[in-house]
């Protein structure tokens, strides 16, 4: 981050601006709540990689559908699996899908948006038309088509959510890059003989990074929601791998005698999404100078 900040100098953050941001962050209520919630979820997911109270593949039918106890903190499901362990692994799975989907969407969308802003004319028009077209396919429709042909699975979720992320990132990149392209230091860079790709990488991207980070946080939250929806429908993560959506769809058949199973995974989704949304809102307030003036 530090070398990025020093690289272009022109409009970016100085050391004092960074420390100002740092101080502001901890006074911003949404940001603090958001980062705490997000950190808890991230930690839960990471810990699940090497430790869970019980194995999520361990079936223990004699102890099925138990309530919360010291042995099973959040009880067990209809196969006697430990619900807390399943929620932990589910956290990692849904974060992984969402992160890859953002990588996919931003990896294609950001260059497209920068290209549109840099070239203008018919290139821009084509990119925007492509965007309109990609918007016609909500993640669910793409996932439906992929599953109809290739069967359901985690890769489908990543692709479907990722494709939906492309126009989002392309639009926001183009919008923010347009104003940067008008600045004098871009003209200076051109005069100095820098190529388009170098200008985009060294001058445009660092200057729109904060906007992209904010959007990325929001897309992360949307990705978690979409992944949960897809795995609820059985189009996403497949058993025996636990996922929050799948846990909810299984719980729905047992609502009359084990309602707690239908509540816990939903709470996990809500807390994660809420945390990320608050974090995104906080980051936007802190990083967006226009909003800062308004306050």
């Amino acid at each position, binding site marked *: 981050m530090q070398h990025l900040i020093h690289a272009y100098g022109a409009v970016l953050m100085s050391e004092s601006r960074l420390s100002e941001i740092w101080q502001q962050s901890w006074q911003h209520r949404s940001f603090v709540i958001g980062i705490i919630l997000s950190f808890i979820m991230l930690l839960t997911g990471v810990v699940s990689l090497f430790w869970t109270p019980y194995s999520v593949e361990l079936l223990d039918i004699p102890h099925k559908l138990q309530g919360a106890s010291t042995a099973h903190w959040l009880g067990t499901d209809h196969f006697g699996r430990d619900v807390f362990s399943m929620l932990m692994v589910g956290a990692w799975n849904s974060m992984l899908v969402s992160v890859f989907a953002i990588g996919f969407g931003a990896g294609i969308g950001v260059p497209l948006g920068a290209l549109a802003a840099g070239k203008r004319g018919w290139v821009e028009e084509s990119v925007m038309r492509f965007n309109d*077209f990609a918007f*016609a396919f909500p993640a669910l429709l793409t996932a439906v088509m992929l599953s109809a042909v290739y069967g359901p699975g985690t890769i489908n979720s990543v692709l479907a959510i990722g494709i939906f992320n492309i126009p989002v990132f392309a639009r926001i990149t183009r919008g923010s890059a347009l104003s940067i392209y008008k600045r004098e230091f871009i003209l200076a860079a051109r005069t100095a003989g820098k190529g388009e790709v170098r200008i985009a990488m060294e001058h445009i991207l660092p200057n729109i990074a904060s906007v992209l980070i904010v959007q990325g946080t929001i897309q992360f939250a949307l990705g978690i929601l979409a992944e949960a929806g897809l795995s609820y429908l059985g189009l996403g993560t497949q058993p025996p791998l636990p996922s929050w959506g799948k846990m909810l769809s299984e719980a729905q058949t047992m609502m009359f005698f084990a309602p707690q199973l239908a509540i816990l*995974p939903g709470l996990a989704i809500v807390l994660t*999404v*809420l945390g990320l949304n608050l974090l995104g809102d906080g980051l936007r307030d802190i990083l967006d100078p226009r909003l800062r003036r308004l306050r």
Partner: protein
Amino acid sequence: MTTFLAKRLFALLITLLVASLIIFLLLEILPGDPASIILGVGAQEDTLAALRTEMGLDLSAPERYFRWIFGILQGDFGRSYTYDTPVSELILERLSLSLPLALLAISLSTLLAIPFGVFAAANHKRFADTGIMGFAQLGVAVPNFWFAILLILFFSVKLGWFSAGGFAGWEMGLGAALKSLVLPAVALALPQAAILARVTRSAVLETVREDFVRTARAKGLSRNAALWRHAVRNALIPVVTILGLQLSFLLAGTIIIENVFYLPGLGRLLFQAIAQRDLVVVKNIVILLAATVVTINFLVDMFYAALDPRLRGGTHE
């Protein structure tokens, strides 16, 4: 305005064309042999051959594509393999549930969101604003299918006021049919209302700062009259845009919600078609939904341009 309309209409047609090509490519060309996907690995060769002829798979790809498109234009969506009925009949039958459900949900969410959003803006930074926005923040984070499950838990399992799923059917009377749509519509509407209320609030906050609102106040209009007659009316442009975008999310939402409540709508048909690998049904529902989304976006653009002449330049900024 006419050139703008012509340009956007042309873009709409191109988008639809590309969308149909992608769907065709993804569902008919990439899988290799759609017939063997439909019938599964254990299918007999003569059954496969019969299905290939029935589906027109012995024709060349461009021929199949044009037959499909021209068929759609004439209202012929092909024949479902699993239901053995024309797909258009299936779609029409299921739309009689999905369309009222979507309309009910969007009306409910608009009726809730706009008053709450305006009220929050009018009480900016006061307790009511913080409270409403807190709820909205929570509402955005709640997945609609989980909210649906909670509604079932409370209103069906605990109170027994509504059935936990299924559809009474329109022939059982309007009351009974609508009753089975209440919980699904609420489940769809509330998360949408949360987003819409936030947009309404910030749009109204932007417009109340404008000079014309101050002028209206100076003319002697009361605070509420200036708010509703001037600020809210002008704030409606971004609200309608989001409403348009939400309609397309709503379509996706109905697919999930219909599955939560076991409602025999378009979403459930699509879902069953995937399970049964009925590619003809999948292909046609997907193109129908994609076309709806694109058309709604087009109409929103038109509405936008009609309200604000500055937007007719055709730029996207």
